[in-house]
């Protein structure tokens, strides 16, 4: 297995994963979407709300705010010594007390732990008008994406097969495949057909269909995948992929344990 990184930023990662079975590639995608533990607001204690939104709507908006996750200091409520009742190991609170008239942003939430703060400070929560108040305490817990999308660390994660485009010698550079390609992968340069960026190809094979002399061929490279990963801000993209891989290892370990108990 080896990885070629194409693009890596805090929120986005794009890389080619070579020499892996499709099952492992799909496992990594699924784990990033649904199994990596993430911090999110679980419930909200509302002390006062005279804004235009209902308590439930405000609570939903709070829940969807991404929080920077610190897996070293917190554990999942199910795995906690307190049995999920709520202690400092498995939850933290964020406070908000505001009065109009102004727009309240996610950055106005005061976290009780400086390490776990909102990942995006510019999310408008509510537009408070004159004499409107909002006082609340939000309780955040770790959770997994399988339970609710607010605990989903990866958004828009997916992969596609690595395309291999070969142009045969007998190509007459008629240019019809260049017009047909929806991704503009092909170009005619000095009367010769060339491939600009094979990573852009979506394997639609329209170029193969339009060519009368079968001079172009597009195939999927076996066991090679182009991954696209985007995070909601709770982890940097690199960290998310590492956590995804760790989760697979953890799950495989659990399976091994269960199997070893069977005589």
């Amino acid at each position, binding site marked *: 297995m080896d990885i070629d990184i194409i693009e890596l930023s805090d929120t986005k990662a794009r890389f080619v994963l070579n020499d892996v079975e499709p099952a492992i590639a799909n496992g990594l995608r699924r784990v990033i979407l649904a199994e990596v533990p993430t911090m999110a607001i679980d419930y909200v204690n509302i002390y006062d709300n005279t804004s235009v939104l209902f308590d439930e709507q405000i609570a939903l908006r709070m829940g969807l705010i991404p929080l920077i996750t610190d897996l070293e200091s917190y554990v999942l409520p199910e795995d906690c010594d307190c049995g999920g009742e709520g202690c400092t190991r498995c939850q933290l609170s964020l406070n908000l007390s505001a009065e109009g008239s102004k727009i309240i942003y996610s950055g106005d939430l005061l976290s009780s732990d400086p390490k776990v703060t909102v990942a995006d400070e510019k999310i*408008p929560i509510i537009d408070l008008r004159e004499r*409107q108040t909002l006082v609340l305490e939000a309780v955040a817990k770790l959770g997994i994406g399988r339970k609710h999308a607010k605990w989903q660390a990866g958004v828009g994660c997916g992969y596609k097969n690595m395309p291999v485009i070969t142009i045969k010698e007998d190509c007459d550079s008629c240019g019809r495949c260049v017009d047909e390609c929806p991704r503009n992968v092909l170009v005619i340069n000095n009367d010769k057909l060339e491939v600009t960026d094979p990573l852009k190809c979506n394997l639609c094979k329209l170029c193969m269909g339009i060519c009368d002399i079968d001079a172009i061929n597009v195939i999927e490279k076996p066991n090679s995948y182009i991954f696209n990963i985007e995070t909601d801000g709770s982890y940097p993209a690199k960290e998310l992929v590492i956590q995804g891989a760790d989760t697979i290892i953890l799950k495989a370990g659990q399976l091994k344990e269960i199997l070893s108990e069977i005589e």
Partner: protein
Amino acid sequence: MIPVRCFTCGKVIASSWEEYERRVSEFENPGKVLDDLGIDRYCCRRMLLSHIKLVDTFAPYQ
């Protein structure tokens, strides 16, 4: 209020709303603004494009 995340993929789009609203009100092309803000997928783009601000309508009735 603008929804916090895209309904389909879950990307946080609310933080881009104010810049989008300001720039579109200055007669910039909405498509170009969305490209600049890094909102690539059409599921996220429709969230901002089709949003109607209702807080101002509700505000007097509380």
